[in-house]
């Protein structure tokens, strides 16, 4: 039955879903490591699954009631029962060891690429380097129903919904919320991090291929939860610098324009 469902799925899903049996990956090393860890767990589980379903189906087929047949009155078997209890425990101990072996590579940000040593090309961002050195730190703030990204604390460079980042650079995120709970998630760039009011959550990614990486809020946050999309656009470092300059200038211009209109209106009201 499951095989049938799976086959139907393969046919119907087609090439659109190349990755139907494991989480998304390929954007950032931590996502790749999670993918590998998942696959190890799955490969440990598959034989257990086959064993259980196999013996179950075998028993149901083989031991159907038969004329004159006798059911064996077995009440238990201590060595066998002890065996499968210990066996299950041992498998879980192995999984634990594997998980801890992978943990650091998933949680701890990698160093940025060699060409970006000492954060040279991101000197314009006044944030301390993330551990490992040579990266940038971006504040992510969830609000019903958009994402705001703050580059540095001067409030002169920020954007909404689309986050632009340089490639080959470790990007560390400080995730917060200013209303209800949200959850930051770009599947190809690694796991989720909840945005909880009153807390700052952390995650990171490092993108080597320029491109758009899409995701959306993963914690129910209200009527338009489904529309709270997020995009990370990775561009080469020099292009990032150009974008930052332009964005900064746009923000400044917009502020000045706002100030001018306000002054004009105040003058109008005053008159």
């Amino acid at each position, binding site marked *: 039955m499951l095989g049938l469902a799976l086959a*139907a799925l393969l046919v119907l*899903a087609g090439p*659109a879903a190349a990755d139907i049996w494991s989480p998304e990956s390929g954007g950032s090393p931590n996502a790749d490591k999670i993918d590998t860890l998942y696959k190890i767990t799955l490969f440990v589980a598959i034989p257990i699954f086959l064993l259980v379903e196999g013996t*179950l189906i075998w028993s149901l087929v083989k031991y159907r009631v038969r004329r004159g047949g006798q059911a064996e009155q077995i009440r238990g078997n201590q060595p066998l029962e002890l065996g499968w209890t210990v066996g299950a425990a041992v498998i879980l101990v192995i999984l634990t060891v594997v998980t801890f072996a992978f943990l650091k590579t998933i949680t701890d940000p990698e160093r940025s690429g060699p060409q970006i040593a000492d954060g040279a090309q991101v000197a314009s961002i006044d944030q301390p380097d993330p551990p490992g050195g040579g990266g940038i730190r971006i504040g992510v703030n969830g609000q019903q129903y958009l994402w705001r990204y703050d580059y540095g604390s001067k409030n002169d460079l920020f954007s909404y919904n689309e986050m632009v980042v340089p490639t080959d650079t470790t990007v560390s995120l400080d995730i917060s919320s200013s209303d209800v709970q949200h959850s930051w998630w770009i599947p190809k760039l690694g796991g*989720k991090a909840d945005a909880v009011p009153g807390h700052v959550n952390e995650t990171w990614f490092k993108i080597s291929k320029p491109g758009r990486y899409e995701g959306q809020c993963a914690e129910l946050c209200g009527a338009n939860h489904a529309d709270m999309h997020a995009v990370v656009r990775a561009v080469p470092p020099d292009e990032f610098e150009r974008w930052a300059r332009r964005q900064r200038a746009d923000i400044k211009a917009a502020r000045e324009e706002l100030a001018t209109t306000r002054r004009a209106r105040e003058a109008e009201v005053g008159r």
Partner: protein
Amino acid sequence: MEATKARLAGAPEIAMHGLEEQPRGWLSWLTTTDHKRIGAMYLYATFIWFILGGVMALIMRLQLATPDNTLLNGETYNSLVSMHGVTMIFLFIVPVLAGFGNYFVPLMIGARDMAFPRLNALSFWLLVGGGVAFFASIFFEPPQAGWTSYAPLSDDAYSAGGGIDAWIFLVHLTGLSSLLGAINFVATIHNMRAPGMSWGRMPLFIWTILIYSYLLIAALPAIAAAATMLLTDRHFGTGFFNVADGGDPLLWQHLFWFFGHPEVYIMILPAFGMISEILPVFARKPIFGYKAIAASTVAIAFLGLLVWAHHMFTTPTANVVLAFFMLSSFAIAVPTGVKIFNWIATLWRGQIMLKTPLYFAAALPALFVIGGISGIILAVFPVDWQMHDTYFVVAHLHYVLFGGSVFGIFAGLYYWFPKMSGRLLSERLGKLSFWVMFVGFNLTFFVQHSAGMSGMPRRVYRYPDGAGLEAYNLISTIGSFLLGIGVLITVINVIRSVKGGRRAGNDPWKGNTLEWFTQSPPPPNNFDVIPRVRSVEPMKDIRREVQKAGKASETVAQPVTSGTS
């Protein structure tokens, strides 16, 4: 001395004939304190809620059948998501198990009623009150914050309408109902077992109802406190979950899941108990490893109280805490695995009668093992960072709660219906219902693993075209309607058989436990003579004694009728 006397008196048998007619009419149902009538009312009420919750699920699946569908808007969808979850958990699975417990605990332990019959009636009517208060919110504003009602979304600033208050009402009323019911079960099981029924001879269903009750008593106060704090946050100016007032939204999550995870085991353990009764009866074998199954029930319950923060792996929490909850969640897989192995070993080398109850009972381990494996994957917390709050989790929880609990409940329904009504359900319709449900269930939920891993979060009312989610969702919607048809076939089967089914006799399956030692349906006082229990399968002993005494076996139990299947 007593044993000698019993032997002299001959084998125990039914000596109950011609009882006075019970008062009839609706008033008799309103005032009844008979555990069987209360149990039956529990079953009727909870199955109505089950149908309502199922219809809500089908409407949601219709909305998700195609990308960017406009059948529902976000608000309506969130209402349906919230009401579906709350209905299925608080108004179906937990109370339907209380319903089976009410009906069968006294019968299986050889008692004439529950310890506190009036408290029992109160439990039921509080449940009805909770359900009515909750569903009344349809007429003003249903809750939209999910069954978990996470603060601050559920706080007055973001959910001003009365829906959340209706939810709080429901939590308190059904919580009180479950708590009183649990105390009643504990008192009954501890004190009213038939002579000779020591702990090691107690039916496994009774073990699970006992542990279910203790878990309810341990877990419910946490959500009662949390819901009260939310109530005062919403209306009386406190700020337990409000950052501006020095509160913390994570406090809600801890309190909620301290209840919420034991709740999962509350919902599954009695279903485990049911199939631990059903599998040996239909395999004509004793249960394999009785002690291990009873002990693993206790172990699951204990560990179940220590795993709650595995629902919070993506919150800002130290890794050492996450690691602890990963380990405790792993640990719980061991006793659960032991149960599954024991059930399969029970079938091994049996003489399996392929009747409908067995179909549903054997499907439970087959489906639950998938939920168990996805549970292990989710317990690996770095992997959970990808899976959390996606359709992978939706698939996981439905494999556990539908594949596990609901298939178990259907097994129980088909197994015990002849006892409750005196009539047999149609085997043909029963098997048809099973296969349609089984296929529909797997179509609906198996593909959702993939949808989640491809980036579909749960609780979204729409998804964009071209994101690779169309096929998964269409398959899922088709499957859900099949599942609905499968359930409908059982409903039709029950309605047809309750009056027109073939007479079942006292013991159509050759059961192992004492409920088969009385008439079907059982008379108000259950038993005239309560037999002395000498093993974990008292009915087997009784049948043997009757045969030895040279009496026709119909005196206690009718032979399995052949023909329809």
